[in-house]
Each structure stands twice: as C-alpha cells, then as structure tokens.
C-alpha cells in the first residue's frame, strides 16, 4: 500500500511529560497501521463496549464528562442524550474539517492514529444506535484522507467495521468523505449541508442541535475528531480513571497547539483544566518561553475566533469556565503567542481578513460587515486611516454582535458565567468572531491605531449646505 512506506512523521507533535490519552501512539513510525494499533491495545475499547449494554456505554461517557473538543466545549454525553426517541435512522457525522486559525490537532489525530478515531466512531454508533457514520475530513488534508482510507480498508477487512462487527449483532458502515476548502463547513449545520451536496451555509436555528434535525432531516450526532478519539481509551480505562486527570469541571487531557513567537512551538497533550497558560507558554516541559530577547505582547487563547488575552491572563487555567469568565474562550485548543515586535493593527487585520474571506455570505451583517472591517483596517495600516475609523470599526462590529462586548468577570459559576459567545445578528458565530480581535486590540492598543491614523476626517457635508 502506498501509504505504508514509513516516512518519518512531520514535526509538530511534542512528546512532553504527562499523562497521555490520545497521543500515546504518536511517536511510533507506524502509528497509523492496524498492526501497531492492535499491538498497543487497539480495538480493546470496542470489545469492552460491546460487552456492555449500549445504554451503559452512553452512561460511562456521560459520567466521564467528555467535553466536546471542537470549540464549544459541550459535554458529548449530554449532546448524545438529545436524540429524540424512535426516529430512526440516526446518523453520526464526524467533524474533521479543522480550519480555525492556529488549530492543529485533528490533523495529527487523523494522520497518526486513524484507527483510534475509527474505534471512537464505532463505540459511539453502538451506544446510540446510529446506523451509518460519515467521516468528513477537510479537503486540503490529503495525507489524513489517505491514512483514514487505508485504515478503514484494513478495519473492514479485519471485521472491525461493516456487517456483524466482531461477529456480533452490531453493524455499521463508516464512509470517508471530504470537503473542498471552506472554513465555514466546520460549523456543524454547514457541514451537514455540505454532506448533502449543497453550498456549506449554516442552517437557521433552532433547532440548535442536529440531534433533533440533522443529516437528511434525521437525528444526527456531530462530534469533533478529538472528542471521539477519547472514547476508546475511556471504554478500556473507565470514567473514574478518565476523571483522575484534569480538573473537576474539565476532566481528561486535551491537545493544545501553541504557535507563534515561542521557543518550542508544538502540539502538546496537556492535563485539562489544571495547567495554566503561563505553564504552557513558559514551562520547560512545554514551549519554554517567548523567543530570545522579547516579551509577551498578547496571545490568542482559543483559535482565531477568540477574544485576545494579555499578560494579566497568563495565570488562568486551561479551562472553559475561568477563560469564559475572563471574556474569551478556550475554543479549539489553539494558542497563538505574539511578542513585542508584533504590530497589533496588522495582526488584527490578518485575522479579520480571514473572516471576511471565509464568510459564506448568507447573513448580511457578516457578509458586508467583515468586508467593511477589513477595508477600514487595511487603510489604517496603509496610512490612509481617518480619525473616525476607530469608532466606525466598533460601530460595524456592534452591528454584527450588538451590545457591550463581553469582558468583565462574572461572579456566577458554571455555563451562566460565560459571557462568550456574544449576542449576534447572524446565524452562526463567524461574523461575531471577526469582532473579537478588533475590540481586544482597540481596547488595549488604541494608541497604536491612533499613531497610524494621519489623515484628517473628511469635512462633513451638511444637508442644509447643499440646499
């Protein structure tokens, strides 16, 4: 098979000290083969699950509190519970359309350990009575598609997937499918649209979860790749062992990709909820600090959509609650570190341009607003900015996500305390996401904006003058 020539894994993953759940096999040169998977406890999770009643498998996942790793952090076990009873068939859709700026973990999971993902899909289908699984991989990830195709062929051949799995009454097909270059397809209802052969535009809510109405109008579970990669391990080791890692509210481990101006950028498997940003960015076991001779200026804590953080946020734990209460989100586990050489306006423009390019065009505030934001930022950067531009940026942002932009810590606990996501005039959070870097940097580095603005405002022409 073409993919079985064991070329060295591309760099990216850093094998730091600490408990490993999903990246255990990453450093084996043949980590993606069935032989390696079976030799390292592979498909034991599936066997363990099949020895239980489906409902008990679901209970195990629920009691482990496996938080969704796609961005919203919603507990998988609870999401699974939203399936309406007796509306068969149910489908499983795996969201492997990883494209949030800075995010880079699902690709590693798919390239290096595809069987682990397949096992997670199988257990999920067994637990919930899902009759077909669609594994949707991002279009640009050719190697991931190749490795998954190979793994599925191996798994079908060996009797792990398909009819009467391991000679039981459990049967499910997993179909590999892939996208063609559209960030918005990572939004779960847009992904379903894409899978139905349509333009990848998010669906109007409610229903908020495709568990109610999803693929072909049927109840559908959409889970992120990393979420499902945890399930096999969980079946072997149990919820109690899973909960022994991480914090009470965020058990287990999580992959974080740290990029930008750090000495040792990489993808790290980190204990969820207990490690702080400071440890991750400065720790010897992790990124080992900012590159030589420079200081931290700001960092993005959870992918391109997250409001930005600064030095005072370094001691927050990597946990959804506290990060949310501080006005941002942990999102998809992507941390982008920027040192003191970074131009705040330029960095803002780059992220905003991403959203302008990737807006699907369905909702006017996002389609027009993100373009406005990009153009205003570009002209400020080009020295063509006007004094009114800062207010105009905030005003355009206010039209996409109205009201005061959330920052203040909230004294309440739990999900209610999370001021993110903000209110929005759009169907999905893409438009509001473009406002995050703008508000973050204007609030903190307004002087940088002002220093670039050299042109006077154009003289206002009053209506009465014209008469």
């Amino acid at each position, binding site marked *: 098979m073409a993919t079985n020539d064991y070329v060295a894994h591309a760099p*990216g993953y850093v094998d730091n000290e600490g408990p490993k759940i999903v990246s255990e096999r990453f450093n084996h040169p043949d980590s993606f083969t069935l032989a390696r998977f079976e030799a390292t406890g592979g498909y034991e999770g599936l066997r363990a699950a099949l020895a239980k009643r489906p409902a008990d498998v679901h209970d195990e996942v629920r009691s482990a509190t496996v938080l969704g790793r796609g961005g919203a952090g919603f507990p998988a076990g609870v999401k699974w519970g939203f399936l309406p009873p007796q509306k068969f068939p149910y489908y499983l859709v795996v969201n492997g359309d990883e494209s949030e700026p*800075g995010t880079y973990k699902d690709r590693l999971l798919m390239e290096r350990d595809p069987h682990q993902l397949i096992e997670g899909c199988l257990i999920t289908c067994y637990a919930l009575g899902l009759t077909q699984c669609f594994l949707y991989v991002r279009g640009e990830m050719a190697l991931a598609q190749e490795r998954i195709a190979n793994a599925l062929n191996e798994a079908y051949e060996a009797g792990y997937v398909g*009819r009467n799995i391991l000679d039981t009454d459990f049967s499910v097909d997993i179909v590999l499918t892939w996208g063609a270059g559209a960030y918005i397809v990572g939004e779960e209802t847009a992904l379903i649209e894409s899978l139905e052969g349509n333009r990848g535009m998010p669906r109007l809510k409610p229903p908020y979860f495709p568990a109610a109405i999803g693929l072909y109008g049927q109840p559908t579970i959409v889970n992120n790749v990393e979420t499902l990669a945890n399930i096999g391990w969980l079946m072997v080791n149990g919820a109690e062992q899973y909960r022994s890692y991480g914090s009470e509210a965020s058990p287990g481990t999580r992959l974080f*990709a740290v990029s930008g*101006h750090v000495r040792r*950028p990489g993808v790290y498997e980190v204990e969820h909820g207990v490690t702080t940003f400071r440890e991750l960015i400065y720790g010897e076991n992790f990124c080992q600090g900012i590159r030589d001779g420079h200081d931290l200026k700001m960092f993005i804590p959870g992918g391109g959509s997250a409001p930005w953080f600064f030095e005072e946020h370094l001691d927050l734990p990597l946990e959804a609650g506290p990060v949310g209460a501080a006005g941002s989100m942990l999102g998809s586990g992507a941390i982008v570190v920027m040192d003191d050489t970074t131009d705040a306006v330029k960095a803002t423009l780059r992220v905003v341009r*991403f959203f302008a390019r990737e807006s699907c065009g369905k909702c006017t505030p996002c389609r027009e607003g993100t373009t406005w934001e990009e153009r205003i930022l570009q002209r400020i950067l080009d020295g063509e900015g006007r004094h009114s531009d800062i207010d105009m940026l905030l005003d355009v942002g206010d039209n996409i996500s109205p009201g005061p932009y959330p920052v203040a810590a909230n004294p309440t606990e739990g999900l209610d305390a999370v001021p993110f996501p903000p209110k929005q005039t759009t169907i999905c959070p893409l438009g509001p996401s473009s406002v995050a870097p703008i508000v973050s940097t204007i609030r903190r580095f307004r002087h940088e904006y002002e220093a670039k603005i050299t042109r006077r405002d154009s003289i206002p022409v009053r209506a009465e003058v014209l008469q």
Partner: protein
Amino acid sequence: MSFFTSANLDTAREIVSRYPVPRSALIPLLHLAQEQHGWITSEAMRQIADLCDVTAAEVKGTGSFYEMFKFHPVGSYLINVCTNISCMLLGGEELLGHAQQRLGVKTGGTTDDGMFTLEDVECIAACTEAPCLQVNYRYRLRVTNDEFDEMIDDIRSGRVDDLPQHGTLARVRQRIPSDRLAGIVPPSAAREAPVWLQRNETAADAADPVVG
C-alpha cells in the same frame, strides 16, 4: 460521450452507492473529476449531474462555493502559501512575496509554461511549523526563500516524487467489500431500532457475550 474514463465511472458509481441520497456524492465526484482532468469542465459537471440526479446548474452552484474546485485550467502544481496569523508572525507574507517574484506571477496567477499556480491560502493546520505551504496539498514546513527556490528547481527538473498531479488528494481509496457492507440506510425508510439496541432491554449484567 462519457467524461469519466470507464475506471473512474465505476469508481463514481461506487461512491454514489455509499450515500443514502445520491446528491451527497456531489463533492466527492467533483474531486474525482478534478483528479482526472486537473480542473472541472462543463462535460464533467453534466455527467456528475446525471450520476447524482441533480441539474448541472446545481453541480456548479455547489462546486463554486468551495475554493479547491477550479473551473478553469490551473498549473500542474498548485502552490498554496499560508499567510494566516501564525504564519504571518513568522514570515508567511514575505514568503508569498518571494514566491511571486520567483515565479513571476501574482497571487492567483499561473506561470506561462503552465507548471505553477500560486495562491495564498488560509490556515492549513501546520501552525507550529510556520511559515508553511502546500504543493498539490502536500506540506512543506518552515520554508525559507532558498528552500522555496530549491523546491521550484526540483519540481521543474522532475526530482520530486511525492507530488501527484493537481486534483489528486488521497492516493488510496476507500473500498468496502460487498460481503462486509452493513447496508446503506436511506432517511425515508421507516425503520425499527437497530437490532443491537434490544440489548438495552436485557438486565445490565446479562449482556450478550462477545466473540472477540
């Protein structure tokens, strides 16, 4: 006249058969067409429409949403340089600038000899190895200007063997042996619960034994 070669037509029919609704095969078939021809022609779209039971306009309507599909000829090698935030911080834009100079084309342009098309691309998930790029969707990481030049020379002189033609993504296709197929479940089929869910009716400690 068939656009697809007979081998690809078989593949196309196999792909369609895996989905409960034929239209779901639309994007996979556009990829197949691009793999065969390098870009997507009107003939390809008409045949895909037949295979997926939609109109050719619907094929174009869906296809034109996705930036990987090209409806005009592109170079044999599509170079996508990432300029998103992580790459920008470490020289992605400078690398793109160098690429433009070296190839003598602007972003989106194709060299006169039809070898290279240059694009800037949004985050391609290799952020820790910035600046990065893809050639026909194969990664090149931490690319310097010199390495870029070397890569172009190597491709021009045929010294690169890990790059398939533009349009080819995975070089391994999923194959489902017919005796292993669990069965595609159309949404309209009024169905009972899957058989294994009956195990929920049994006592917790008396689940079916598993043959492993």
